[in-house]
């Protein structure tokens, strides 16, 4: 029988189906499971109630990130609820033999940053975590997505979940990105074109020259935001860039195992005649630095443009108006020149070394604007060390910035890093929902370059003018 042409997604998915249930979901094997302090306690309690254990403790990795402070991490965590969750994670991991990079551990950091940088995330894997931005790991040609609490319990107890197979979408972008246009601008642009629900029900493959020419850090930023398009996740075929990134990482395969893995990874490509349920194409030349102006990530546009009229957006008029009212913006206004109060560089979207390099490239030789409070939060301790080793910290310090300690921080504002009500934040994270960065906070999502431009000028500024 000749083999049916498959997509990258099909190849990885089908290789992990243990059983197909007629008239039901697939029993789907999970290679890697990440957990953190917030969504795991109820799942562990579930195991206890049932009197069952963790089937493969060495396939689960724990880090503390969502609730952790980003200053004075050596001191006891003040908030009792956070402290309690951190303690529960530590105890559960100790009890079941799960590796745990808690607060203070040199490997600690945001779950979607530490997985890849330690070679835990590899091509062709299936990866889940109780956090929707698990899609980040798709950058390596893995199938990675967020799961609910019951599913966390399923994976702990059986290393499987029950999943119907999603539909497949391919987004192809060819051409070259212009000056000042960085990876974050690409998914923000796609979002502005297809809206925050444009890929609901699909799993995306990103293809074309733009992604082929992107670094691993950039690809992670892209896949990270696939969930904001409504997709279950997104992935990019592994290539020489992927292999070079993984070679020598702590948990990457070594020696013969590496060669074997590499041979397999090279087969992980969509066949030429494979069929997708939906195909979208964009042109790199149409993408300029992006910024959002509304309260979902689909409400964004090129930084030089005006806020669109209600008739030009896909969201219903009432919700669009509500969104602008929350932001304190009006239709047809220019975004450039709007006053900014806070700048947040960090999160699993843009908390990697490349993001700090980009930020530094603009602030170098300039000064932080007086009206700006800046929170620069590395995604992990490894990123933090790189920032120091590469001399980036010196550039930041000279420009009047301080570096905080790793964690999710103002991405979801569960710790003390909350943007005050009514204040404007240019943020490199992933969600601009009402109240996401603190009750009443107003978020403008953008790239590290746009964040840096705002940080030194105090207003929304086109970074191309400063490069």
């Amino acid at each position, binding site marked *: 029988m000749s083999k049916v042409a498959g997509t990258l997604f099909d190849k990885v998915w089908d290789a992990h189906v243990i059983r197909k249930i007629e008239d*039901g979901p697939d029993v789907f094997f999970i290679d890697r499971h990440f957990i953190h302090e917030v969504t795991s306690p*109820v799942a562990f309690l*579930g195991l206890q109630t049932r009197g069952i254990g963790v089937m493969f403790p060495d396939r689960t990795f724990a880090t503390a990130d969502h609730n952790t402070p980003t200053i004075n991490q050596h001191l006891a965590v003040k908030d009792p609820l956070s402290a309690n969750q951190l303690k529960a994670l530590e105890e559960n991991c100790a009890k079941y033999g799960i590796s745990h990079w808690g607060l203070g551990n040199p490997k600690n950091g945001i779950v979607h940053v530490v997985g890849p940088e330690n070679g835990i995330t590899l091509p*062709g894997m299936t990866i889940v975590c109780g956090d929707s931005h698990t899609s980040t790991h798709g950058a390596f040609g893995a199938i990675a997505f967020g799961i609910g609490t019951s599913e966390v319990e*399923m994976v702990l107890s059986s290393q499987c979940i029950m999943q119907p197979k999603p539909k497949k979408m391919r987004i192809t972008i060819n051409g070259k990105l212009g000056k000042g246009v960085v990876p974050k601008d690409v998914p923000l642009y796609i979002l502005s074109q297809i809206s925050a629900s444009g890929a609901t029900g699909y799993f995306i493959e990103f293809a074309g020259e733009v992604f082929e020419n992107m670094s691993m850090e950039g690809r992670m930023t892209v896949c990270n935001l696939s969930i904001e398009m409504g997709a279950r996740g997104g992935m990019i075929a592994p290539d020489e860039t992927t292999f070079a990134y993984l070679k020598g990482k702590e948990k990457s395969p070594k020696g013969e195992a590496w060669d074997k893995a590499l041979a397999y990874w090279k087969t992980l490509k969509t066949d030429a005649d494979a069929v997708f349920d939906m195909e979208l194409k964009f042109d790199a030349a149409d993408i300029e630095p992006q910024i959002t102006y509304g309260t979902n990530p689909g409400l964004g546009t090129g930084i030089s443009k005006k806020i669109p009229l209600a008739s030009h957006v896909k969201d219903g008029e009432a919700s669009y108006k509500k969104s602008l009212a929350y932001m304190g913006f009006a239709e047809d206004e220019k975004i450039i020149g709007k006053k900014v109060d806070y700048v947040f560089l960090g999160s699993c979207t843009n908390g990697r070394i490349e993001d700090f390099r980009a930020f530094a490239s603009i602030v170098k030789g300039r000064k932080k604007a007086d009206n700006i409070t800046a929170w620069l939060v590395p995604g992990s301790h490894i990123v933090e060390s790189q920032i120091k080793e590469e001399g980036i910290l010196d550039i930041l310090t000279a420009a009047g910035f301080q570096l905080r300690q790793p964690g999710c921080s103002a991405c979801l504002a569960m710790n003390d890093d909350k943007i005050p009500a009514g204040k404007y934040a240019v943020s490199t994270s992933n969600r601009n929902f009402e109240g996401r960065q603190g009750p009443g906070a107003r978020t403008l999502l953008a790239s590290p370059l746009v964040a840096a431009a705002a940080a030194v000028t105090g207003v929304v500024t086109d970074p191309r003018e400063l490069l």
Partner: protein
Amino acid sequence: MAYDKFSVLKSTAVPLPIENVDTDQIIPARFLKATKREGFGDNLFRDWRYNSDDSPKRDFVLNNPIYSGKILVGGKNFGSGSSREHAAWAIYDYGFRAVVSSFFADIFKGNSLNIGILPVTVSPEFLDKIFKAIEADPKTELEINLPNQTISILATGEKESFAINGYKKHNMLNGFDDIDYLQAMKEEIKTFASHSMY
């Protein structure tokens, strides 16, 4: 969480003839901070059931002793809104084993089936008949027969079939959830894992 097997359920029912009952009403967000799955029943329909001083609202159906039973009958589009699994936990924990409506929100339906509540979708006409029958006599009994996939109003003998996917039906009949299903195939999983390259 293991739950009771579901085969044939004969019970009086609690009527809630309201459309679009969303999960925020079923269990308000402020009760999601718990780290255990128990006790959600106390807060089921919290804001419809209690005044802000915690005194019961007389006119809400759960506070009316005439109505009781293991079946909740709701209006169209039951369980819409946020995907919180806690909504289904609250209904189960309160003591319901089945919810009848003419339409269920997708995620709520999935969550319910997974924790042992049978969502029974009936035609709008049959739903109307059920509401009328209970209105006429609160002691009206319904019978939900899962093996045969039928629901009937016992007093009048009126009956309708309902659909359920084969996998979920099997689970409900045996009191299994996905975790039990997976526990039962551990050997197969182990074999699979031993061939996995990671």
